[in-house]
């Protein structure tokens, strides 16, 4: 734990706790510890690398992203027409979340150089020096293995395989390959975030169906408008990091058009999901209202000129971004609500 070059045998952390002046021990012999104190004038004697505490490893797993993964996976599992034993449901969602977290750790390991540049991410465990990159890699790989094997045992081989593919897709295809090479990176990355409800559905039914593909599509087409709205008002960060964000490579006019285009594609898919067996009156009414509102927001963003946006501090873009969070939460919440109504035999 001592810095290289420090005398071995006496951890530096103890040096500062000793009194500064006496150099002889009670027996009159020179104090062997004294020489470690040479040159030390204060109590900040610990010179080793900063050590992580448990919370730093938890931060590696991106807990906020994990909460979205837990929520959508749980909905995918609960709305499926096949009942799942509560213990199996709990263990499955737990390891879907751990798998998602593991891919987050792998992402932080690979992207530590970009994270250090961007204001939003500079305080993450690796760029701030609390966790070493090789530790993050080890945590990511080990937890990926645990999560895939445990999900395979608890929720079936298809669910385990889908989780393995999700981790591979997010860590390798998105993080290592496409994030730094194409401005469509957000679209590709969205696919990784869209898998959890499909995995939850696979735990319950053991298969893939129209409903689970539509839940995938809902998150997949929601992601680009959500993140590009963020990119419109967080412009400088991505530029500094050299990540080819659409706002940087093709300009903000094109980004506004893309937000509208993906929102237009999203709306019919969201409605379609309501017409399947997992939809119901609650979901359909939520979907109609939310999509009309979302389309209106995207249309306003598309119509705005950059000068107008800058003048009001990107108010419309920020409102759209906040609304997009509510959009996804209410869609999946309504699916859950309709499932509860069906279980109570109200509908």
């Amino acid at each position, binding site marked *: 734990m001592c810095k290289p070059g420090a005398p071995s045998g006496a951890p530096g952390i*103890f040096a500062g706790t000793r009194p500064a002046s006496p150099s002889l021990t009670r027996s009159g012999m020179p104090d062997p510890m004294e020489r470690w104190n040479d040159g030390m004038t204060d109590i900040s004697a*610990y010179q080793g690398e900063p*050590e992580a*505490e*448990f919370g730093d490893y*938890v931060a590696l797993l991106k807990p906020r992203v994990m909460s979205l993964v837990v929520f959508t996976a749980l909905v995918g599992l609960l709305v499926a027409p096949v009942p799942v034993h509560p*213990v199996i449901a709990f263990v499955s969602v737990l390891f879907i979340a751990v798998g998602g977290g593991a891919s987050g750790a792998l992402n932080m390991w690979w992207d530590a150089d970009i994270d250090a540049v961007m204001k939003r991410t500079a305080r993450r465990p690796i760029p701030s020096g609390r966790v070493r990159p090789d530790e993050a890699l080890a945590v990511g790989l080990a937890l990926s293995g645990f999560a895939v094997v445990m999900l395979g045992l608890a929720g079936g081989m298809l669910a385990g395989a889908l989780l393995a593919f999700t981790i591979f897709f997010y860590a390798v295809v998105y993080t290592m390959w496409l994030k730094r090479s194409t401005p469509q990176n957000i679209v590709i990355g969205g696919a990784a975030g869209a898998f959890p409800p499909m995995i939850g559905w696979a735990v319950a039914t053991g298969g893939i169906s129209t409903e689970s593909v539509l839940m995938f599509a809902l998150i997949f087409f929601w992601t680009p408008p959500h993140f590009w709205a963020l990119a419109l008002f967080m412009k400088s960060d991505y530029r500094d990091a050299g990540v080819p964000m659409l706002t940087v490579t093709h300009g903000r006019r094109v980004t506004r058009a893309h937000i509208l285009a993906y929102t237009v594609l999203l709306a019919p898919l969201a409605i379609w999901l309501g017409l399947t067996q997992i939809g119901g009156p609650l979901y359909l009414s939520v979907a109609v209202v939310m999509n009309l509102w979302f389309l209106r927001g995207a249309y306003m963003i598309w119509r705005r000129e950059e000068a107008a946006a800058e003048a009001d501090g990107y108010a419309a873009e920020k409102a759209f971004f906040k609304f997009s969070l509510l959009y996804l939460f209410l869609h999946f919440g309504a699916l859950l609500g309709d499932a509860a109504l069906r279980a109570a035999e109200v509908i």
Partner: protein
Amino acid sequence: MAIRAEHEIHTRRFSRNLGLGLVLVAFVGVVFALTVVKVQQLGAVQGFDHVLRPEMIQVESAK
């Protein structure tokens, strides 16, 4: 005399050790609970254990 110096680094190490300990205990609990449920879902299980059990011998359907 015991060294009593309590440095901030010790707190951090303790938090790591405690956290990992709790995670491992929780993992044991999860695997145990999962095993119980999975075995219960198998239904009645019996095998030959040195005693002939006529009900387990499959009867060939009459031709």
